[in-house]
């Protein structure tokens, strides 16, 4: 069986194919576990990016800060950060800035075919067996195209401990109570 290329699967996962190509690919993906897993990984990546909503922002100010940083380099960037109007930035601006960096990074990622294929091959290999990992959101247990993430309540920052026996714990305090989430590899 001839499998679609990684780039075709990525475009398929992002609904960026025409109707006919999509139909043909869909037939293959439905019947091929390996390609289903690859598509699901692409979709998860997109979903994770979609979760962080971009707040309403002062885009002009953001643009001028970015321009200043690019033009003047890191030192000038430091000066911009020290300016009073920048000091009063609210945290939403930082989130938006982070989102832009992620978007830019993803653009480079999607453009550079060889790097992408290499990395995705590695990710596909990793998806072969259950893997337990601590992520920014919480504890993620992946197995093939399926996953379960035990998240920290309200995005609380957690201390984690790892047991070489196959367990990760994430501990956080909220409202005067300690919660300990654990995920286990069987």
């Amino acid at each position, binding site marked *: 069986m001839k499998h679609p290329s990684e780039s075709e699967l990525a475009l398929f996962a992002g609904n960026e194919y025409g109707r006919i190509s999509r139909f043909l690919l869909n037939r293959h993906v439905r019947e091929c576990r390996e390609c289903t897993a690859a598509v699901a990984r692409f979709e998860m990546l997109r979903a994770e990016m979609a979760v962080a909503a971009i707040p309403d922002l002062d885009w002009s100010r953001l643009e001028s800060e970015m321009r200043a940083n690019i033009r003047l380099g890191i030192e000038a960037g430091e000066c911009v950060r020290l300016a009073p109007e920048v000091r009063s930035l609210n945290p939403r601006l930082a989130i938006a800035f982070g989102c832009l960096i992620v978007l830019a990074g993803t653009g480079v990622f999607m453009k550079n075919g060889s790097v992408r294929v290499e990395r995705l091959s590695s990710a596909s290999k990793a998806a072969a067996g259950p893997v337990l990992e601590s992520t920014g959101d919480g504890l993620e247990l992946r197995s093939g195209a*399926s996953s379960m993430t035990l998240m920290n309540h309200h995005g609380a920052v957690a201390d984690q401990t790892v047991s070489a026996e196959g367990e990760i714990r994430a501990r956080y305090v909220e409202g005067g109570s300690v919660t300990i989430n654990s995920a286990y590899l069987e």
Partner: protein
Amino acid sequence: MPAQDRALDPANSVKVDLQPDSPLSLISMSMGDSRASARGGATVLDLHMSLTLRNAGLRRVRGVTLLITTQEFAPGGKASVARPCIDVAPSQEFTLPVDVRLVRPVQQAGGGPLVRVQIDGVLFDDLSFFGPNKLNSQRAMTFWETEAQRDRSYFKRVLQAKGEKALQSEILLSLTKQAEHGQLDVALSRNGRSAGSVVSSASQRVAQFAFLTMPDAPVQPVQGWAEISGNEARSPEIEVLNKSSKPVRYVEIGWMVKDKDGNDYLAGSVPASSNAMALPPGQKSKLLPDTTLKFSKTGRPVDIQGMTGFVSEVEFSDGKVWVPSREQLKGSPLLRIMAPSPEEQRLADIYANKGLAALIAELNRF
């Protein structure tokens, strides 16, 4: 994709299954802003549950662990949510958050509850236990409670001997330590697999553990090693000797790693592999977990340059447990590296949010 989101029906997606003789009863379950989204060929379920439970027994509850199973989503594992360091009197209620995100291909969708929540264990104030204990939560909760008693007692002693200012200084020190506490991100896999990591066999080496000795620890690490390859450590193996006069049924060795810049991190722990471990006095045994740990920090691999181990927990066959005393921790570099106990974290949080008077009132409750 809000158009594809739909409210979840809690009755269909989550089943809370409490045993009939459980000392806790379910009062209510809120699903908050839980959502199901279809994203291309995948279903994403964001469940934000809040379970309100009542202590229906006659003893005070000091800890609870809920077992979370989602077999369709995580065929190779399971999860739990625990609430240690509580003091719930009979007929009192408390709330526990359970936040889970599930992703699976659409074609796998089946009927019935997607998430099952059960009680794995309840710990009481006399350290007695109720529950199936599938996750060994009795041991974990007993250790947390023992550490909690140790730390409450320490802060009370400071208050009584040196006064409020000294207590305040201790708590501020704890908060500073928590803020500075560096930790690594870890990916765990079985049988030599590791998440997204490619290593060359040429860079593999076997590294020996160095050990920090605790004078009154009932168990002593004798020797240990692990296969190291860049930022991966595989199949750690540690030999321990029971120095005490009682049989030991569980040992855990704390595991510190040093990066190439000389920074130490508490990487994790190496526990006894077998639940049926029985280590008689004067005998040796090996801890042999068959896992691979991959360490990174802010997305960058952390090359492991050295490893240090220390005895962090011991459980005797009579159920009694040993944890390092505050005095021992204070006199060793461990206090700087180890995360504070859940109770110390909770007490520091009370001070940070409600002030010294609230902290003193909390200490006096016990």
